[in-house]
């Protein structure tokens, strides 16, 4: 029993709170010129695309949504690309490598939100929105307060997600290219600003699509090579892994990832509904021409993301067979060179030699760039479109001015991202992606969802409920073991669960409901009356902003 407890404790310590954040110690590796060479090719190519996109960016609609010109298939790839971050590729394959089945449980959580988004939200979002999800949330509610709150929600999500990605990028580049952390973080920041500032959504989307194709091809090759090694026989793959792995049969069943029902449900809610509140993901629904294409994008995205997680599962098991047994990938003490996050990279070298290793390293870096570019664009649009154009200028901003503000915000975000990346280098950032998902699930999502589905939602309800969700998510994260114990080093966490989403979502929905039904103001009646036209438009797409022709 004690041994089992210890294993569970070790597993909890080893598995990141959210595999989307690259955590743990890394050691700088020797400079890898093949990888750097391939990465330079990627940069030159994507800069070419940015230049092409820059010429087409003449209006705010081009800039934020690529003029609605992206097809469902392309958008599906881009959405999948947003989810297939470097940290999720390396993190989930590392989780499978260390604890087997738990890696699959984890990745499923990231996937299952998508069908629900499709059934309940995608087409309504497309029919109602223009540039950002705040357009939808504030459609019939008080513009100023709702936009301020949802822009604030967006910026918090973007900030935490961005910090996690920047720190991950710095560490990854030390590992893959043997470059300094500082060099890496500055480089990511500068490239991110260039893609977004000049290329807008069009370039950001294409960078994401190219990276998604590269990553899917690379991962497919690795998985096929792993299966080739076991004669394309899954039971042989599993039985050999069980024989080699120190935990033996335990890697084939659920371990310590989710231990009690409350944490399990809370994590499930955060993953599922957090996805439906991430501003950089929601923004992608406005880049397609109509609801038809929006639906198709989710279909393709679900397919690609699911396929990718199956690949990482095979890759993780393949690493048990081919990396764990190979002394070349271990240091003197028997640990994996560069930490367990590196197993997918080592596997690339084991199945494809140095050239393929370089390719996968370059793709991993490209992945970070593509994801941070999407985040920066979402952050910039929250500031320029929601705060500047709609709140400060009350919707009367000139298009050139709004563009100027967007570009300046992007630049500022780049600088802030670099500074935060440097500041958080040695901090424990495991909680950050989790926090981003929790805030998205308990502030952005409830407002968005009820504004589309519940006639009686009023500005007051949305404001108080959303704020309650936001504050609960933040406060409980700070009081939870991931921050209170792991970051602040207190003895005992005040809030016992790792994931606050269950409680924060309850608080948020309660606030939204209670403060709406008790709102007897005249403005509230008008807002309820505006539900009717909103409903017709959300159902039929009548009056929706289409693929804009100039």
């Amino acid at each position, binding site marked *: 029993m004690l041994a089992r407890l210890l294993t569970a404790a070790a597993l909890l310590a080893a598995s990141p709170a959210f595999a989307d954040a690259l955590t743990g110690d890394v050691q700088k590796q020797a400079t890898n010129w093949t990888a750097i060479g391939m990465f330079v090719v990627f940069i030159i190519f994507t800069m070419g695309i940015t230049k092409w996109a820059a010429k087409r960016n003449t209006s705010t609609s081009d800039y934020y949504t690529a003029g609605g010109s992206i097809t469902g298939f392309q958008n599906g790839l881009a959405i999948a690309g947003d989810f297939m971050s470097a940290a999720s590729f390396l993190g989930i394959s590392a989780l499978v490598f260390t604890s087997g089945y738990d890696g699959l449980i984890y990745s499923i959580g990231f996937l299952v939100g998508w069908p629900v988004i499709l059934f309940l939200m995608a087409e309504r979002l497309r029919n109602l929105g223009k540039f950002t999800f705040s357009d939808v949330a504030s459609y019939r509610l008080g513009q100023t307060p709702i936009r301020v709150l949802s822009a604030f929600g967006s910026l918090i999500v973007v900030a935490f997600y961005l910090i996690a990605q920047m720190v991950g990028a710095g560490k990854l580049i030390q590992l893959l290219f043997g470059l300094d952390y500082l060099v890496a973080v500055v480089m990511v920041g500068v490239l991110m600003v260039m893609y977004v500032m000049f290329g807008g959504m069009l370039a950001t989307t294409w960078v994401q699509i190219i990276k998604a194709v590269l990553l899917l091809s690379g991962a497919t090759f690795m998985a096929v090579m792993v299966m080739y090694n076991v004669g394309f026989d899954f039971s042989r793959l599993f039985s050999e892994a069980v024989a080699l792995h120190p935990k033996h049969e335990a890697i084939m069943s659920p371990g310590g990832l989710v231990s009690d029902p409350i944490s399990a449900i809370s994590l499930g809610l955060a993953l599922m509904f957090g996805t439906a509140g991430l501003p950089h993901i929601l923004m992608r629904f406005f880049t397609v021409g109509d609801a038809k294409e929006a639906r198709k994008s989710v279909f393709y995205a679900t397919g690609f993301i699911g396929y990718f997680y199956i690949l990482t599962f095979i890759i993780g098991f393949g690493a048990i067979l081919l990396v764990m047994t190979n002394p070349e990938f271990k240091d003197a003490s028997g640990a994996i060179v560069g930490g367990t996050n590196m197993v997918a990279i080592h596997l690339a070298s084991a199945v494809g030699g140095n050239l393929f290793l370089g390719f996968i390293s370059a793709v991993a870096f490209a992945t970070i760039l593509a994801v941070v570019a999407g985040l920066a664009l979402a952050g910039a649009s929250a500031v320029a479109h929601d705060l500047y154009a709609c709140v400060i200028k009350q919707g009367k901003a000139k298009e050139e001015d709004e563009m100027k503000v967007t570009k300046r915000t992007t630049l500022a975000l780049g600088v802030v991202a670099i500074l935060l990346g440097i500041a958080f280098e040695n901090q424990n950032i495991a909680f950050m992606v989790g926090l981003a998902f929790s805030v998205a699930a308990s502030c952005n999502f409830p407002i968005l969802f009820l504004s589309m589905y519940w006639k009686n939602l009023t500005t007051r309800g949305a404001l108080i409920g959303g704020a309650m969700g936001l504050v609960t998510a933040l406060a409980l994260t700070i009081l939870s073991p991931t921050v209170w114990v792991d970051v602040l080093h207190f003895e005992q966490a005040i809030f016992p669960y790792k994931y606050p989403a269950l409680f924060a979502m309850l608080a948020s929905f309660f606030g939204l409901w209670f403060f709406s039904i008790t709102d007897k103001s005249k403005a509230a009646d008008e807002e309820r009356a505006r539900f009717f036209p909103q409903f017709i438009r959300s159902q039929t*797409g009548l009056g929706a902003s289409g693929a804009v022709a100039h």
Partner: protein
Amino acid sequence: MNNENVYRQINADPRFQELVAKRGRFAWGLAIIMLASYFAFILVIAFDPQLLGAPLGAGSVTTWGIPAGLGLIFLSFALTGVYVQRANGEFDRITQEILKEAQK
């Protein structure tokens, strides 16, 4: 064109009411299938992990967890496919008819 009138006209169209009801039932039905399967999976992991750790057959290393997990991934994909098929076909066709009529 007076939008308010068009909206009222659409709302009065019995086909619109039928579409809303039909699509609502379909979407919520699929969403409930998805939510129920996922939370059933999560709750089994929380309450009785051994259930998924049981081998598929005597002497097999592969556990029930593998088909359950992969099954959820395929289910997600299949359900989105089913929805898109019907929404982009039948539902969109009805929507177009309603819109055409209303905007005459």
